[in-house]
């Protein structure tokens, strides 16, 4: 039995989205879909919501609601180590995002606009950070930096004749470098996708009107690429702030980021303060998502 398609009746003009075929499955099907969706959203959000709620719980331990309080937030803002970790996270994120964006954009331009024989190799290489498990990336970087420290120690010894006490490159440098390493490919993918959709005729028009290649890039290509670049930047920022595993393996003395702080706090026991920090971090991430959407909407 075939159902007459409503689209056929709309004066012959077919919509690309006709009535859902599962309409033939009847009301049950549609109800099932709706409830499945609702349950899933509940599954996704309930833990988060509970977390947020209990950050306002005045009970010290346990999840019994005892009353509303902002005490944990106060404590959080007064916790020097925590604020320090947050600041460090922001600094690392800021610096690494900046570098990632520049490198990622340049690479996207190269890969999208040029033809060269080793391209497939680079294509694969650039996908690797997306695929390689974080734990492997983390330990491999840790080993690499350890090696680097050893090499520097040897060089210093050879040059000055003295054995330095403790050479450890780890810290700001390694954190930034590692963050760039894993976020750059994401910026690259975002910008490249945007480049692929780019109307090449616009650049030809600019050249036709007298702009040489550099001026075309600065006046036409870059401004129109900006939304993609910003999207990529926000993505890199989020990845950096949220990163735990890699940061954990490559950080050095005194360079604990916020996720590392949260992790060590967790190891010592669950407290509502952790809930407060988590909520704050959540809000921050949501803020970035909203920002990203606003940017995208403004330019489409």
């Amino acid at each position, binding site marked *: 039995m075939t159902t007459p398609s409503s689209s056929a009746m709309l004066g012959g003009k077919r919509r690309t989205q006709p009535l859902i075929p599962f309409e033939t499955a009847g009301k049950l099907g549609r109800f099932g879909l709706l409830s499945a969706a609702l349950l899933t959203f509940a599954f996704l959000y309930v833990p988060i919501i509970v977390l947020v709620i209990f950050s306002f719980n005045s009970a010290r331990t346990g999840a019994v609601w005892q009353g509303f309080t902002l005490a944990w937030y106060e404590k959080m803002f007064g916790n020097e180590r925590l604020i320090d970790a947050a600041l460090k996270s922001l600094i690392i994120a800021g610096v690494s995002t900046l570098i990632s964006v520049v490198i990622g954009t340049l690479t996207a331009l190269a890969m999208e606009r040029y033809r060269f024989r080793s391209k497939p190799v680079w294509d694969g290489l650039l996908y690797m950070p997306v695929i390689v498990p974080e734990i492997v990336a983390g330990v491999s970087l840790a080993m690499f930096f350890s090696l680097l420290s050893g090499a520097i120690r040897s060089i210093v010894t050879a040059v000055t004749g003295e054995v330095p006490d403790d050479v450890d490159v780890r810290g700001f440098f390694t954190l930034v470098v590692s963050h760039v390493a894993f976020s750059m490919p994401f910026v690259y993918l975002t910008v490249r996708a945007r480049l692929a959709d780019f*109307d090449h*005729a*616009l650049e*030809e*028009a*600019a*050249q*036709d*009107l*007298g*702009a*040489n290649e550099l*001026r075309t890039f600065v*006046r*036409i290509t870059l*401004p*129109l690429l900006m939304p993609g670049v910003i999207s990529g930047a926000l993505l890199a920022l989020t990845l950096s702030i949220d990163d735990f595993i890699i940061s954990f393996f490559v950080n050095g003395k005194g360079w604990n980021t916020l996720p590392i702080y949260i992790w060590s706090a967790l190891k010592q026991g669950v407290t509502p303060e952790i809930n407060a920090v988590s909520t704050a971090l959540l809000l921050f991430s949501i803020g970035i998502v909203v920002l990203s959407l606003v940017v995208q909407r403004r330019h489409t």
Partner: protein
Amino acid sequence: MPDTLPVDCAVELRDVVKKFGDVTAVDHVSLAIRNKEFFAMLGPSGCGKTTCLRMIAGFERPNTGEVYINGEAQGATPPFERNVNTVFQSYALFPHMTVAQNVSFGLEMRRVAPADVKRRVGEALDLVRLPQMAGRYPKQMSGGQQQRVALARALVNRPQVLLLDEPLGALDQKLRKEMQLELKSLQTQVGITFVFVTHDQEEALTMSDRICVMSQGRALQVGTPVEIYERPNCRFVADFIGETNFVNGKITVIEGEFATVETAAGMRVVGRIDHAPGQRPAIGAAATLSIRPEKMVLAEKRPDATANAYEVRVISVGYVGSDTRVVVSLGGERVDVWEQNSVSTLDPNYFFHPGETAWLTFKPDNGLVLTA
């Protein structure tokens, strides 16, 4: 193809070849486009016309051969150093700039003084009749308006040659016709050379001073619209421009300007034959007679003419108001005949009906014998 190269030449292509990988897009094309000419490059998609245009603009470089603009070889000169401007098929207006900024872009690149820029932009917008639109953004405008902005943006730079790549393709019928007239008058007004690429032969015929018909990378014929229409030099051109009927056979007689083509079935048709030296075909050569539908006459009785008179059977009759389009069977072959309805009448017997027999004639002058 062209016989003598005019001295007053805006654009010239000399034996240009362009390949993309294995595909030869432009195959030894030579063209001379005169100053202040409205020149159309016409052909089906893939014929190489756009590639030629892009080579004039500088976006492609010929593999062999040379492009000359105003007598100067262009070589590897990039587009931003050539004194030509392009109106792109998709208009390619910069979405992040206003209309005024779009139009002034070329002037800015040439470092024209701001006061002059403002004045010239105003003039250009007046020229295309969009004076109030300076502050708008492209996405706020209709297709027709966008196209005019693209025109203004190109013309404001006073290029020697304006290149137009199928600019009217995206417009609806009515707007198209309007724009055709506008473009033509604009060209006369501004007084520069227009090189216009299109696949629409009606458009080319209406607007151009001369047309170059292209197919599969080759320039088949260059001439005025009348020349192209009435004296096509090969079957492709005869078929591509307007409608025509083909009768295939072998040449049996050549007498002065006329030749007789005899079909396999023994039917004979007489038409004009090309005089060009070295082009005279031999008796027995394969040839095709091209005769356009409007050049033939259908009559009830056998006419007096001795040549080109045939008894035919009417297959279908199409009434389109201004003319009647009759399809007849001439010895099994389908032939289209168009007769103008020059008499106002309601009498049904005025028209032919399917199944009737009739006499089809045409003057030998109106038929063309082609061997290419």
